[in-house]
């Protein structure tokens, strides 16, 4: 596998992690997931009806995509820890996307509850992928707590506002000793590419694909955007200059 994404003990050839929220139905979701090339995709935990699952786990299994349960909707460390344990039990995985938000309006991570939950879950043997603010200090604290990846937001969930503080993302990348996944806020493919150019190891997105007019086509765009950004990061861009520099020889 050339240039794999490595998180904890797993290797992935795709650097695009998808979410399943927001898709109109499972058929649309399936086409989008296939077009994205993703190998790791989030699911949420909710109360079950007596039919049990909603089909999303069967879909991921059929597509050979690893499910990554999240703690979406949790607003306290206690809730998030319980949800993570329920997910481990239901899905038989110790991987968790840890999400502890402060309020419904911004869906911004609550740093105090987030760090507390991260410490407890790491202690409990979970592989924690922590959704966090674009705060370089908090990212460092999470890494010190033993999370397997830090996942700073570009902008609030579902806004499509892109990466509002690229320098903070670069600061997080510069000091992280764990993979950095740009999570939330991506609206279009150029922003996914930018995340990778800034040095992120992967991108996690959902709404920008599932709520696009053509989810399948946008998923393909995101796949290529992530790939282009990764290549560009490794290729070493030219320095920016104030004045022009001719690319043709003088006559």
């Amino acid at each position, binding site marked *: 596998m050339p240039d794999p994404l490595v998180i904890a003990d797993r290797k992935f050839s795709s650097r695009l992690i998808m979410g399943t929220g927001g898709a109109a139905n499972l058929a649309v979701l399936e086409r989008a997931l296939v077009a994205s090339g993703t190998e790791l995709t989030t699911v949420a935990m909710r109360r079950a009806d007596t039919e049990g699952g909603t089909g999303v*786990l069967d879909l991921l299994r059929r597509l050979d995509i690893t499910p990554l349960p999240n703690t979406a909707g949790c607003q306290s460390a206690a809730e998030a820890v319980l949800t993570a344990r329920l997910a481990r039990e239901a899905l038989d995985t110790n991987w968790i996307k840890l999400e502890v938000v402060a309020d419904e309006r911004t869906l911004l991570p609550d740093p105090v509850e987030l760090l507390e939950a991260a410490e407890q879950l790491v202690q409990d043997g979970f592989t924690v992928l922590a959704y966090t603010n674009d705060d370089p200090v908090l990212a460092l604290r999470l890494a010190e707590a033993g999370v397997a990846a830090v996942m700073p937001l570009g902008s609030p969930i579902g806004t499509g506002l892109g990466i509002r503080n690229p320098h903070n993302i670069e600061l997080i990348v510069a000091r992280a000793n764990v993979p950095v996944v740009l999570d939330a806020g991506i609206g279009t493919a150029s922003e996914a590419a930018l995340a990778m150019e800034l040095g992120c190891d992967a991108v996690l997105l959902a709404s920008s694909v599932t709520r696009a007019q053509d989810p399948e086509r946008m998923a393909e765009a995101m796949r290529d955007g992530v790939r282009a950004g990764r290549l560009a990061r490794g290729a070493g861009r030219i320095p920016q200059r104030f004045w022009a520099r001719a690319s043709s020889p003088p006559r």
Partner: protein
Amino acid sequence: MRAKVNDVEVELAEGGTVEDVLRERGYPDSGVAVALDGQLVRRSAWASTDVPDGARIEVFTAVQGG
């Protein structure tokens, strides 16, 4: 004896276990997780965990999200 399963009031036989409740209510035994009064009950303990009168049972599964 009564309990609430995902907010639905149900009548249970005396001495019923978590496993009995799940079977009676028709939940599948894979892909779900159970909390009893806010505490996780591991799958391995479903058959040996009694449901007390007035208990609140929540059954969870994975859905589209995130």
